[in-house]
């Protein structure tokens, strides 16, 4: 009885509560001393030596933090299983439908008083939901989880939710069920409004972290609640308050007062309703900030109407010597950019991805950011801007270049030239996300050789099926080089004109790849077959608009239990093919959407397939547009 969705990628069928000590081989290295001391302690009632053994075991297990290791330890024997269950501190559920909430809560809730679980991570919708591919109301409701965990984990301190639907009701129940709650982070969630935020602010008296990141807030202008005012009036324990995605206006005076009485505050990210004048006030109240989300970064006054001067703003930054991370700049007035110079030398993270700035405006800033490790930027800075980054930021680990104009036919302001420059200057690069319209195999190959530490390589050539812009060849060789040369690669997203050859390379060399995204790629089902057979660590596969049929889908049958999920939309899958998968794989849930024609009759070709391993069986909350086979 083990959560299928935990980090360890073993299929459900291997889970066992048996005493047979043959559970995962990695369990064996733990048995050396402890097991020898006993007499197979699991089956007999606890005699003193066994009790000591279990106590010692629990103390040792406290040091095991990685879910993978804990899962292995829990397989050794029943007593280890129990001991591990009692001491697990974080429950990680990578797919909320892979296990029932009740079962998960029971598994780790032992020992009265809620066991030792202090932290829960829950992930819901498939990632393509971010791109409007999953209709509203699909699911991933947090309600049953809160209902199950409330009684089981009353001492829960940390909740992390990603792509879950969270209602104001749910937030109310969370506040009520977990009086010790210290951290609430919601990323890409939806379903709640400022009403729910008000409840959290008011009732979670020990709150240290409230991070709202790219959530969709359900607010109408006439329904706004002044949630900022609801935080405790005494000094708070707030360390992090991130709400730039809460796009509605808020009570600024209340925020300023809140910041003033939150001496531990280190991270503050405000929304775009904050002007530089207001930002100054906030910075004055919290000179100890390390992470600052700067809001609009423009004056509240009309241009030429006497707004705050740049040097006044600069004084604020001079006084904030602890800042290492900046973001925001939502409506940036470039004239204010020099104000951040005083902190540039210490910056390790800079998010300009909402700042429409040119290379010329970027240069004087980036030239001072020698310590930068994370940089997010818009393609408006062009290849020239990226060259400047390459020249200065030799310690860069993560780069994301987003398109200002996210359409297929856009001009595209960065190209292979920028990528090449980055590869030459930022040799320690580990993660890159790059949107462009023009790319060459040569630049990608160069990056594969110059940046051997790459763990994440996501290249999005926005125009569909675009070949190498110089040779006219498919982009197979470029991606082939990436998988060949970047031996630590675990996440890959491909684009451009790609034939089956690219996937042959990926299958052959991409042995560590866990997450793979493809769109408009490949010629035939061989591509899928290469991937399933070759990428032994494949955990998440997302495919769209590619010419793969049931044959390709079925070539994955032996591998689906090793994966968290497979998503395919707009390919050439049929109901029969999907049904066959569902029939042959009892521990998979196979969801299909878009299988109806105009007159409500079932069509053969389906639009969206989402399949995932699960111990819980078909979910009962599927809306009518989802068919579970």
């Amino acid at each position, binding site marked *: 009885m083990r959560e299928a969705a935990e980090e360890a990628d073993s299929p459900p069928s291997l889970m066992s509560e048996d005493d047979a000590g043959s559970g995962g081989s990695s369990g064996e290295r733990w048995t050396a001393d402890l097991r020898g001391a006993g007499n197979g302690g699991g089956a007999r009632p606890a005699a003193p030596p066994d009790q000591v053994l279990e106590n010692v075991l629990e103390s040792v297990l406290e040091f095991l933090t990685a879910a993978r290791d804990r899962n292995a330890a829990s397989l050794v024997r029943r007593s280890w299983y129990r001991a591990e269950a009692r001491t697990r501190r974080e429950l990680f559920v990578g797919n909320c439908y892979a296990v029932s909430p009740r079962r998960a809560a029971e598994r780790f809730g032992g020992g009265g008083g809620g066991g030792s679980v202090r932290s829960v991570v829950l992930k819901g919708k498939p990632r393509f939901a*971010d*791109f*409007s591919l999953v209709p509203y*109301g699909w699911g991933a409701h947090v309600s049953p989880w809160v209902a199950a965990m409330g009684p089981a984990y009353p001492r829960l301190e940390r909740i992390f939710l990603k792509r879950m639907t969270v209602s104001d009701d749910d937030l109310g129940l969370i506040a009520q069920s977990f009086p010790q709650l210290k951290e609430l982070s919601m990323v890409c969630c939806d379903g709640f409004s400022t009403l729910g935020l008000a409840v959290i602010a008011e009732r979670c008296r020990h709150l240290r972290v409230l991070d709202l990141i790219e959530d969709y807030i359900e607010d109408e202008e006439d329904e706004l609640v002044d949630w900022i005012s609801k935080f405790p009036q005494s000094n708070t324990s707030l360390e992090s308050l991130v709400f730039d995605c809460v796009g509605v206006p808020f009570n600024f005076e209340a925020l300023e007062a809140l910041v003033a009485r939150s001496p531990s505050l280190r991270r503050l990210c405000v929304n775009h309703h904050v002007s530089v004048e207001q930002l100054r006030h906030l910075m004055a109240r919290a000179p100890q900030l390390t992470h600052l989300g700067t809001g609009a970064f423009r004056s509240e006054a009309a241009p030429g109407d006497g707004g705050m001067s740049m040097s006044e703003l600069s004084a604020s930054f001079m006084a904030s010597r602890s800042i290492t991370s900046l973001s925001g700049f939502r409506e940036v007035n470039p004239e204010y950019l020099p104000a951040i110079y005083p902190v540039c030398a210490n910056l390790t993270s800079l998010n300009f991805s909402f700042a429409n700035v040119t290379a010329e405006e970027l240069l004087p800033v980036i030239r001072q950011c020698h310590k930068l490790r994370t940089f997010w930027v818009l393609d408006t800075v062009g290849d020239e801007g990226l060259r400047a980054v390459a020249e200065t930021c030799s310690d860069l680990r993560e780069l994301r270049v987003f398109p200002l104009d996210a359409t297929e036919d856009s001009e595209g302001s960065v190209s292979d030239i920028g990528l090449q420059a980055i590869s030459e200057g930022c040799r320690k690069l580990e993660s890159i996300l790059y949107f462009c319209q023009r790319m060459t195999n040569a630049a990608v190959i160069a990056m594969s050789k110059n940046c051997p530490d790459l763990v994440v390589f996501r290249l999005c050539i926005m125009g569909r099926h675009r070949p190498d812009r110089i040779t006219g060849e498919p982009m197979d060789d470029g991606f082939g080089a990436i998988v060949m040369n970047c031996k630590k690669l675990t996440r890959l997203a491909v684009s451009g004109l790609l*034939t089956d050859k690219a996937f042959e390379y990926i299958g052959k060399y991409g042995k560590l790849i866990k997450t793979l995204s493809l769109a*408009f790629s490949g010629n035939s089902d061989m591509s899928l077959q290469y991937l399933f057979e070759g990428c032994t660590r494949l955990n998440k596969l997302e495919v769209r608009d590619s010419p793969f049929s049931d044959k390709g889908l079925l070539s994955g049958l032996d591998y689906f239990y090793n994966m968290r999920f497979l998503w395919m939309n707009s390919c050439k899958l049929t109901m029969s093919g999907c049904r066959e998968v569902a029939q042959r794989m009892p521990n998979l849930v196979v969801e299909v959407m*878009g299988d109806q024609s*105009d007159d409500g009759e079932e069509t053969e070709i389906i639009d969206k397939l989402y399949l995932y391993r699960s111990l819980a069986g078909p979910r009962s909350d599927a*809306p009518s547009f989802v068919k579970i086979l």
Partner: protein
Amino acid sequence: MEGGVGYADNCLKATELRLGLPGTSSDDHHLRGKKRAAADDNNASAADEHDAVEAAPPAAKAQVVGWPPVRSYRKSCFQAAAAKTSKPTAVTTTNKVDEPIISKNSAAPAPAAASLVKVSMDGAPYLRKIDLRMYKGYRELREALEAMFSGAAAEVNPSEFAITYQDKDGDLMLVGDVPFDMFTSTCKKLRIMKRSEATGLGSPRQMN
């Protein structure tokens, strides 16, 4: 090949009154047709590796949902910014009501806006929202609403409640009187109230 929203769209078109020969449509299923064309061409050339160039995308490409893969959150931020004057942006005092950064439709499939309506139930403290286009008919809608509010009013018998809606003109109507597609296009807000309070609304035929 389109998802749920496209389906609902097509239903609506079926009930649309229009001049023209039956079987013609002014709004073709661009995405469906063109995607298939591209896919079929690719399949045909599977055997030949180097010439296995993908079929050149059709000349007049329809925008595809969710491509390029930029999060709707990010896209809507720039839409909102573009709606304002060009930088440096014009005066807005900070607590003035701006267009929200998250546009209401960013959670819905891009081409056809989701038909999100608020649902309130007498006695339940919080509002819900649903997308009417996800339901094929009244029965499904009712089942969904019952499921949604069963927590809030667990002891209450569903048949004690009537489902009403506010239409475009602001009138309160009983759900179920008009064809479903007409209902989805005119409904602005749903309200579940005690049946006793709903007397005088609509026709004797109740939603079953």
